[in-house]
């Protein structure tokens, strides 16, 4: 399980975005996790609140969007892959060596928090 390490890296990237946008805090963030990323969404969601404590991300709502694997079949074009079958076209079984999607591990977007009145 390395989702705590991933959560800490996520917080670093998100904190940088907050600084660039002159925001003190975030209220929500969305990450995209590919089926081939080796990250378990539930574990990341579970690890995030503790990792975010004391950072500008504390209390932010984390949404994880799972991205299915997409391969390129020579016959059927882009096909959605079944992780249990590996990189094989679900229609004809041909190898689909390249992942067109599904290896993402990225911060998609952040919702900046409005400053609290007492912060002004």
């Amino acid at each position, binding site marked *: 399980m390395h989702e705590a390490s991933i959560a800490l890296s996520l917080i670093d990237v998100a904190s940088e975005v907050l600084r660039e946008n002159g925001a003190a805090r975030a209220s929500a963030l969305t990450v995209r996790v590919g089926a081939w990323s080796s990250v378990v969404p539930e574990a990341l969601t579970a690890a995030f609140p503790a990792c975010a404590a004391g950072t500008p991300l504390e209390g932010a709502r984390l949404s994880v969007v799972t991205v299915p694997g997409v391969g390129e079949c020579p016959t059927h074009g882009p096909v959605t892959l079944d992780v249990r079958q590996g*990189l094989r076209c679900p229609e004809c079984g041909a190898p689909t060596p390249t992942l067109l999607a599904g290896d993402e*591990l*990225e911060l998609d977007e*952040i919702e900046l928090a409005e400053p609290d009145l007492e912060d002004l």
Partner: protein
Amino acid sequence: MTATNPRIVTVRQNILKANDHTAAENRATFAAAGVRAINLASSPGAGKTALLERTLRDLAGQVSMAVAVGDLATENDAARLRQHGAQAEQIVTGTICHLDAAMVQAVLPRFDLAGLEVLFLENVGNLVCPSSYDLGEAARAVLISTTEGEDKPLKYPTMFNTADVVVITKMDLADAVGFDRDLCRENIDRARPGVPVIELSSRSGVGLDTWFAFVRGEGA
């Protein structure tokens, strides 16, 4: 005053970009020194250290080699590897279940890289977490032993999908444990279509010539 809509910023950035940046620095360092760095990953007990011991012994005097080895708690592996005359530096990762690029970068000053041809980066025994972390290696070797089940490549698709070569170890035990070679190779190919596969035994020596060629960068 009316309430404003929340400001949503589209980011679309890789969460591990800091690691990737450090990995790129490591890769440049290795390239400048002429060092081929090889990242070895497998589950615990697949035979990473045994293969490195055999490699250090058999290629001594032919290839200048050293090892940086990651482990959660002990220095046992580095001690084993040093018995074969090569420099071996332990990276104790504590509670972290993988090597990352910064851990590797921190240990590099202990090596005389200019005098090295090959630096092995022996990862923590784990088929999940190391897959996410580029260390700056030239090649990634993922090991699977004949004793651990032919379905590992499908259970751990990311690790095998990032392999430059897959090494099947403990071939001397294949018959004894009823290893299904064809099924294992089919599953490896499903995880990483077309990836070169080397079958070997660090004990009997079968298949080692192909591995040594890969170590030297002569292909698998």
